[in-house]
């Protein structure tokens, strides 16, 4: 049950935040250029990702034995999770600007406004490429996170359910447009995702390396607690230290 809930929450948060970043880029492209080209670029990226997942996923799962797969997945989750956690610590300690998809939306708009628009009736390839690249890069992270979390004791169900929940929420945010983007506590959410992904990373790496975790799946709780405590020590220390002018 612990692993199921943590996987669902972790997948929903991680996928939701990645999708928000992709949405910010697509909205910026759609509002500065033609919405049709932004959607074509985004859909093209989603189709490309789906083809790669359908072609490569089953091959990998069928050929790799469980323990090496857990080592690979644990390592990948640690790489993602520790990066999110490091940035989260720096943001919460005031050493890095807070995460803000609305700011990304504004920056992307500003960059696109400097580009010449194509004549009417011609496809807007720069807009399609910018939207497609944004969705593709964030989408790769979504696929890796869902696939990695799906290797947990409860299988793909909680990871896919969490991802589906995130898709529904982000589409809702997209329909109400940018206002909710400004209100989300993104820095705190990304810090939480960092804790969850890193915890699963340590857990899977241990399982892949023949570790028998005391308490079974409940080990995820004390692993997460330890990472939470260690990162809060860093946040408290960094917050107290004066920053160079």
């Amino acid at each position, binding site marked *: 049950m612990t692993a199921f809930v943590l996987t669902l929450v972790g997948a929903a948060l991680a996928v939701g935040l990645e999708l928000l970043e992709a949405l910010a880029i697509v909205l910026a492209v759609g509002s500065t250029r033609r919405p049709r080209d932004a959607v074509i670029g985004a859909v093209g990226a989603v189709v490309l990702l789906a083809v790669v997942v359908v072609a490569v996923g089953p091959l990998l799962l069928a050929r790799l034995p469980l323990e090496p797969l857990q080592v690979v997945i644990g390592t990948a989750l640690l790489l993602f999770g520790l990066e999110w956690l*490091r940035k989260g*610590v720096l943001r919460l300690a005031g*050493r890095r600007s807070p995460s803000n998809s609305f700011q990304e939306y504004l920056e992307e708009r500003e960059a696109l406004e400097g580009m010449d628009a194509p004549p009417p009736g011609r496809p807007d390839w720069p807009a399609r490429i910018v939207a497609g690249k944004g969705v593709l890069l964030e989408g790769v992270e979504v696929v890796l996170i869902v696939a990695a979390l799906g290797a947990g004791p409860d299988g793909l169900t909680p990871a896919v359910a969490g991802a589906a929940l995130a898709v529904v929420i982000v589409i809702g945010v997209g329909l109400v447009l940018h206002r909710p983007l400004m209100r989300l506590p993104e820095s705190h959410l990304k810090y939480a995702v960092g804790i969850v992904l890193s915890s699963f990373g340590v857990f899977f*790496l241990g399982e892949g390396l023949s*570790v028998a975790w005391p308490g079974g799946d409940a080990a995820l709780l004390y692993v997460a607690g330890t990472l939470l405590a260690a990162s809060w020590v860093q946040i408290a220390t960094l917050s107290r230290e004066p920053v160079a002018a």
Partner: protein
Amino acid sequence: MRALRKLVLGETVALPVGVALVLAIGLALEALAGSWWEDDGGFVLLALVVAVLTVSLAPAHRRR
């Protein structure tokens, strides 16, 4: 290319290098250590990961 590099390696080399070291030490201990690894190896991995996080944040401490 820069976006791909950032996606794979992140913003600091300390994390990928640190995670690679954790993996190498884990593999070595799994092969060399006795039965204690099965019972306590998880705590060793957790301590190593906390150390990697701490090292990756060291530059922020130095920037005073």
